């Protein structure tokens, strides 16, 4: 082993060294050290810098009370006069202090270099031995080595006690269950039992209409021209009563959860352009197809449409899906096609979902069972 020994501390010159260390150069006085006029000038310079800082602080306070922040948010590139004025004066107040202190250090404070000896990082041999001896005595006095029963039971108890805090994490959130496999689209078309006039009756909930995002109006199949791309949501988010849902079911957090799974893209193309997948022959209406808006990679909403190719691009990581071909991935990191929503029209001509999505939407997850996708079975 070519282990190299730690440095000696004798300061002996190695005969192999080509040039001996010339030693510290002689200290050179600065102009301010030898010329009183220059020294005085530096003093004034530094005092002036501190003065400028004080001035900036005064201006900062003036700006704080002069500019009203809410009224002028749109000026100066949308930053607002208040923000810009406060920022500039605060910067001045701080920078001038910094420059003044550093100038002070460079021009007027003593500039002698000192030499300090280094010592090895390890402790003195005696200290190390003492510490090791203490450790040894302490260890022996616990009797850990002699009493395996105590040691092992202690280890077991310590190991177990950490389970307590872990168990307490359980209430951080609900369990996933099958929540990721269902969306609110499935609430349309189901059968429910309600009590009417004291009698229990079975009611067929209407199929879920497809509404325009934001405004919530249901979409007529005849509303869409070829090439139209519409961001859509289930009508239940705007009109829950029609689907026997409570308002609380589609408000606040619930609304966000529904949107994160149910958001939809509608695209109308030439019916002849569609290459329907196996079992998907009746999933479109006159060239109108519906796909999940949530990317199957990490869940960004997809938004960029290439009209001529029916390709849809995710703005986050550029996964590209072919909406004419079952949402197939044509480019990018997404591992699965975009889930397609089977649609039809109801008696009034509105677009409705035939059922829920036939596979989980959004990003993949461990328990996601590909074999169970009904699409794969040719539903």
């Amino acid at each position, binding site marked *: *082993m070519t282990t*190299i020994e730690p*440095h000696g501390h004798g300061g002996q010159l190695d005969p*192999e060294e*080509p*040039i001996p*260390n*010339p030693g510290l150069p002689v200290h050179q006085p600065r102009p301010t*050290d030898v010329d009183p006029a220059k*020294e005085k000038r530096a003093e004034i310079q530094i005092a002036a810098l501190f003065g400028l800082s004080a001035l900036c602080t005064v201006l900062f306070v003036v700006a*704080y009370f002069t500019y009203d*922040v809410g009224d002028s*948010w749109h000026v100066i590139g949308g*930053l*607002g006069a*208040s*923000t*810009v004025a*406060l*920022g500039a004066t*605060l*910067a001045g107040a*701080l*920078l001038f*202090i*910094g420059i003044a*202190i*550093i100038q002070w250090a460079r021009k*007027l404070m*003593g*500039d002698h*270099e*000192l*030499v*300090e000896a*280094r010592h090895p*990082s390890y402790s003195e041999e005696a200290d190390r031995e003492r510490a090791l001896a203490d450790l040894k005595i302490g260890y022996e006095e616990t009797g850990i080595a002699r009493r395996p029963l105590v040691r092992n039971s202690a280890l077991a108890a310590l190991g177990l006690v950490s389970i307590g805090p872990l168990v307490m994490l359980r209430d951080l*959130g*609900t*369990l996933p269950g099958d*929540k*990721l496999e269902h969306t609110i689209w499935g609430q349309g078309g189901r059968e429910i039992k309600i009590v009417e006039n004291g009698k229990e009756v079975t009611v067929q909930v209407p199929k879920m209409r497809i509404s325009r995002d934001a405004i919530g109006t249901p979409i007529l199949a005849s509303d869409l021209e070829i090439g139209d791309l519409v961001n859509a949501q289930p009508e239940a988010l705007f009109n829950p009563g029609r689907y026997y849902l409570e308002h609380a079911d589609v408000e606040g*957090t619930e609304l*966000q*959860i529904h949107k*994160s799974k149910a*958001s939809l893209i509608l695209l109308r193309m030439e019916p002849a352009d569609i290459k329907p997948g196996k079992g998907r022959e009746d999933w479109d209406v006159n060239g109108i197809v519906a796909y999940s808006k949530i990317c199957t990679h*990490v*869940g*960004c909403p997809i938004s960029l449409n290439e009209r001529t190719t029916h390709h849809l691009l995710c703005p*986050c990581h*550029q*996964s590209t899906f072919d909406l004419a071909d079952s949402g197939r991935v044509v480019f*990018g*990191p997404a*591992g699965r096609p975009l889930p397609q929503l089977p649609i039809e029209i109801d008696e009034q001509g509105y677009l409705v979902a035939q059922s829920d999505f036939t596979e989980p939407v*959004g990003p993949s*997850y*461990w328990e*996601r069972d590909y074999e169970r996708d009904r699409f794969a079975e040719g539903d």
Partner: protein
Amino acid sequence: MMKTADVASTNGTEPATPKRSAKAAGAVATWADERLGLAKATKGMSLRKVFPDHWSFMLGEIALWSFVVLLLTGVFLTLFFDPSMAEVQYNGSYDPLRGVHMSRAMASTLEISFDVRGGLLMRQMHHWAAMIFIAAMMIHLMRVFLTGAFRKPREVNWLIGCLLLLLGTIEGFTGYSLPDDLLSGTGVRAADGFMKASPVIGTYMSFFLFGGEFPGDQIIPRFYAIHILLIPGILLALITAHLILVVYHKHTHWPGPGKTEDNVVGPPLMPIYMAKAGGFFFIVFGMTALLGGLFTLNPVWKFGPYDPSKVTAGSQPDWYMGWPDGLLRIIPPWETHIWGVTLSWNIMLPILIAPPLLLMVLMALPFIEAWVTGDKREHHLLQRPRNAPTRTAVMAALVTFYGLAWAAGGNDIIAIKMHLSINQITYFLRAAIIIGPILAFIIARRWCISLQRHDQEKLLHGYETGVIVRSPDGGYAEKHLPIDETKAYVLTARDREEVYSPNGSADGTGVAAPGGKRAEVTRKIRAKLSALMFADNVQKPTAEELHEAQHHSEHELHELEHHIATGPNKHGPSSDH
């Protein structure tokens, strides 16, 4: 006439007599010492402790001071921010969003920006300081690596530094998410996707963190607790440990006249270092104020509140999250479906595997190098990057990997600005991210060795003067002059390196080294790496070699001088006629 030495020891023309303020300070110090024993404590760390001076030692200071700015501005923001996801209707000063439903977090962010004077300034300073904090840490890390400052006894500080970088990044991400705006919400949505991709426990992690199904109503308050309490506490503790170790080890210094492995040369802590470092705090603080006041970043009011069905084109995370995002963009669509479960390699590789792996490589580098070199000495003199070609090349490869991944994070912006096909950029980067680092390694290593050869040339044959001399027989030669002694010394102030030989001794006697088959394989690997590390390096000359070369150069110089004196090179009108 005053003697220089007198002046230099007083630094002024006035005799040094204690003023009243000095007396008062002395009284305060005595009062404090009688109660706290402060003077005893300064035995360990004298107020005149030496800190060597070099511009590159300032990089870590930028990180430190921007962290202080983060604490100060952050405390101000907590006075106004409400980390609640309860839905409210915004009714503040910002017209375009008035009447819009949003979380309390987003609404209070808008209030800080448009209804609290100086609030937007503080928000932007906080964000700018965060960007600078992480950038400064990374540049500081590169400085430490490239100059060999991580070597014994500073390995522990290297590990602490790597942890600081990791924690700073997490701290940045949690803080960036707090306003609950559309852009940061998209980032949180992606983070949800990352968690769900984790094998076995992924969905549980997501449901537990979000307090139910994404997005839930818990993530902002939970991130808030992590952002203002948990991580800053750990950061503060680690930064303190980092600085204590700097003081304990004493700062490294560059080789130079009078500087050795056994001393440290520089100005004292008080007053010079205190003044310079303290002044520099104000500079960093002031620069942050300037950036915060004049340059917008992350205008959340333009993005609007988070909505899982909306996204803006050109979505980008903060710069330091750009590289994993880039890997996420260029990874091929690999997903395995097996035994009823899904393995998302397209998320696990770029997010759950690559960044932790890179961090571990970074943390292991000092120990790998120490194992290959077998060097057990303490090192306090820094090395120039060129004098450790393989190490420098490793960093060049890592930086190239990082840079390409980062560029991939902006592939959509590159495609739009440069009118290129995003597909082709992505295909190119998929190959470049593997080939690029290898090329960078080779080029950087050879580059360093060339620079070493150039240094050797200067040392042995002097520097090129640019004076070309023609000899009587028509040949041309350049006049070289010896470099001055200080420069020559600095060039030679480095260790001689030895390639490790697997046979147990460097003389090749062939005596079998102890240990079994596995030990032999380990030794062979170590020998290969040692050869890669040292075999091609230029070693400094011995005293004899230098003497001989200088003698030779002197002789050549004499010949040239002779040519100049006698030949057609002679300047001015000839005096022979």
